[in-house]
């Protein structure tokens, strides 16, 4: 596969999803980039903004299996991973492992912050290790595998905020905004008339192989050493203890409790590579990096009490970081 083919397939998938989803063009692109980079996405937004529809359309366009799990406080890990059931086969009774909904190419973890931490952590191993261990047996996940989790930023009562370790496992955190009036009008037209639109399959046959080649190609995109150094400086400058020589930025020192982990830098580089390929380039530019800094780092910055008291968001701090960290 060459970059042009990647760009062509990516464009078709993106166009097919946009046939179903009105607006959210940036969200769609970044979800696709994260998918081809092998990451998971946390979608944050109010209910009814099309998050579930996005994931469903993605799975249809890619021709992949899709499972949806509604996270509730009484949801148990076995409900996600699976459990052993006593089965009778040819007159013999024995336990067989019944796979849970995690065993799918695309998993939608809806309102993930409503489940208990115990249940939330059940998906940790699956997300990072691409395997599940149940009753002493390890089961490999099918490839490609992607978890798209959603959470509602409004209804926080009775919720369990995701722990830092789990947040860090999400490649991107995307903020789903409300549609503009024009987009809302288009949504109304599509959903209140006769007939239902659904995304068509772009990769009907041999989807897994094509996706695997595309994921491999993405990692071959060239990136210059000065750009990698810039990413390192960016991620390092989110640490409140900062660089010993220059000291941390004032915004970081004042509002951040913990900065980004190395996974943040990995996400930036891979996301920038995906962005470059989508733009038809075989090398990463500073613009590619700038395009993915926010979704890569915003959930990896742990704000302190002062930031919450002053309603300072991670995006505001990241803006200061991007402005103040030199590119050269």
């Amino acid at each position, binding site marked *: 596969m060459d*970059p042009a083919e990647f760009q062509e397939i990516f464009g078709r998938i993106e166009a097919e999803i946009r046939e179903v989803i009105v607006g959210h063009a940036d969200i769609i692109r970044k979800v696709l980039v994260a998918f081809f980079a092998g990451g998971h996405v946390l979608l944050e937004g109010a209910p009814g903004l099309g998050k579930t529809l996005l994931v469903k359309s993605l799975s249809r366009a890619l021709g992949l299996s899709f499972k949806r799990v509604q996270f509730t406080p009484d949801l148990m890990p076995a409900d996600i991973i699976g459990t052993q059931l006593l089965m009778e086969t040819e007159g013999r009774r024995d336990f067989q492992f019944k796979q849970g909904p995690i065993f799918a190419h695309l998993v939608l973890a809806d309102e993930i912050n409503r489940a208990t931490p115990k249940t939330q952590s059940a998906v940790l191993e699956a997300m990072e290790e691409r395997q599940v261990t149940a009753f002493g047996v390890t089961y490999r996940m099918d490839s490609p595998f992607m978890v798209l989790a959603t959470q509602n930023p409004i209804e926080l009562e009775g919720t369990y905020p995701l722990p830092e370790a789990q947040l860090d496992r999400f490649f991107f955190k995307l903020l789903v905004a409300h549609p503009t009036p024009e987009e809302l009008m288009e949504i109304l037209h599509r959903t209140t008339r006769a007939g239902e639109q659904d995304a068509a399959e772009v990769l009907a046959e041999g989807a897994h192989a094509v996706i695997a080649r595309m994921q491999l190609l993405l990692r071959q995109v*060239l*990136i*210059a*050493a000065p*750009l990698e150094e810039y990413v390192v400086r960016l991620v390092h400058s989110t640490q409140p203890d900062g660089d010993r020589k220059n000291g941390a930025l004032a915004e970081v020192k004042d509002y951040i409790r913990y900065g980004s982990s190395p996974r943040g830098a990995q996400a930036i580089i891979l996301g920038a590579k995906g962005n470059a390929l989508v733009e038809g*380039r*075989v*090398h990463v*530019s500073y613009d590619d990096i700038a395009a993915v800094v926010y979704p890569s780092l915003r959930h990896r910055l742990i704000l302190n009490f002062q930031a919450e008291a002053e309603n300072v968001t991670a995006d505001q701090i990241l803006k200061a970081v991007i402005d103040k960290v030199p590119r050269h």
Partner: protein
Amino acid sequence: MSAPSGPEECIDALRRRLTLHTLLQSAMMFLAPLFAAWYVLFFLYRFAWLGPDATMTAGAALLVFAAALTAGRFRRRAPSPLLAARLIDQKSAAEERFITLATLGPATATADFLSRLKLEAATFARRINIKRDFPFRIDQSIVSSVIAALIAIILFQVGFELTPASRSVAPSEKLADAGKKLGNDPRFADLAAALRAAATKLDQPSLSEKEKQTIVTDIAEKLDRRIAFEKSQGRGVSLLQEIADDVAQAAEKKDDASMTLPFKIPSLFPIPLPWMKQPGDESGDGKGNSGEGEGTGAQKLEQKSSGGSATGEREGEKKSGVKMKEGQRSEGSEALQRKQESPDNRPDAQTKKGHELKNEGEREGQQTSQEKKGGPEKGEKNHARDGDESKDKRGGGGAKSDEKTPERFGEKVSGDLKEKDLRFVIVQLPDEGGSASGSREAQGKRTAGALPSANVPLAPPDERPAARDKQMLPLEYRGMIR
């Protein structure tokens, strides 16, 4: 320079050009300070604070230092291929294609991607014209450097003007130097020997100031006669004239407390400062009128600071020695002017001029004292009184002259009388007998001691100066004088 064909060539060509720019900028950065330092050095050399060897050594050291600084700055700022690639990226909006090419090699990148990147970069490289897109620009640091150098020069100049000169050269050194100069010309071997002998004598600590003054005066007269002789023979006298000027200046005492600058500095101040005195300011045109007692010489600064004891005419007297010979005086002034205009003008000589003018009053007082001892006749008192009145008017009542008013004017005399108090000159008659035709030393002693044989009134200043040789008096006056 041919247009670079590929992206790598483009990067390399730009790197070479930037290297040249950096070298030029580094050199220009230190050029202005170097010139400023050289200016100061030349200034110090020209006004004799530094000798030629020291000047050359210091100049060369400054050059080496500036070169070292230039090299150091260049090494720190030498452009890398990465910088060149970044600049091309920015100029051609190549989205980091060149910087990626400059940092990635075949070992670290997929061959397909690399070849594709080269192709894309070559397209952008064709848009670049290195000469047009990357012209040489004067760095802000260069401008700052030039401004700083100019400020330094101005501060130096101002500081120099505000600082009193302190260096002077002893008369014996001047005579010895003059002897060396003249010794190069066999025609003046005798004069050279006389100069050297006089220099040796001047170094003797046992000699009094008067005797030293006499020696120098004697030498000056000898030089004047020789100049006149050479002129009559139609030979060149430039060297002699120059040495005569030096010796005439050496005849004057130095006043270390004086604030007189030893040389002419083009003043930056629009208003003359009261403590500053320029040699050029002292070259009055000598319009002092003894009858009216008015002095119009251009030495207002001097009058302000020293109580106004000298006029332009008096300066002329001092320049030409103790004896008031008008011819010598005018020639002395011309020589002084030539000296100031000559490129070889050195401050020590000019210091002497300034100082001799400054000390005029004291020397006149000494000579007046001598004349007093010799018993000036009453008939001369009128002239003396006239002169004294004019002096009082000119000097605006200087402290010294007020205290030492001669007794013959009906006032009480306290302290030593000075030459200016008498207003007459000593005239050496051509036939004063065997003793007068003896050695110059004898004449000098007589002149400095109690030998005045005749006193004649000063000629009005508007009269043409008499011949610079000894004044020939009519025969009928001789008896009267004797």
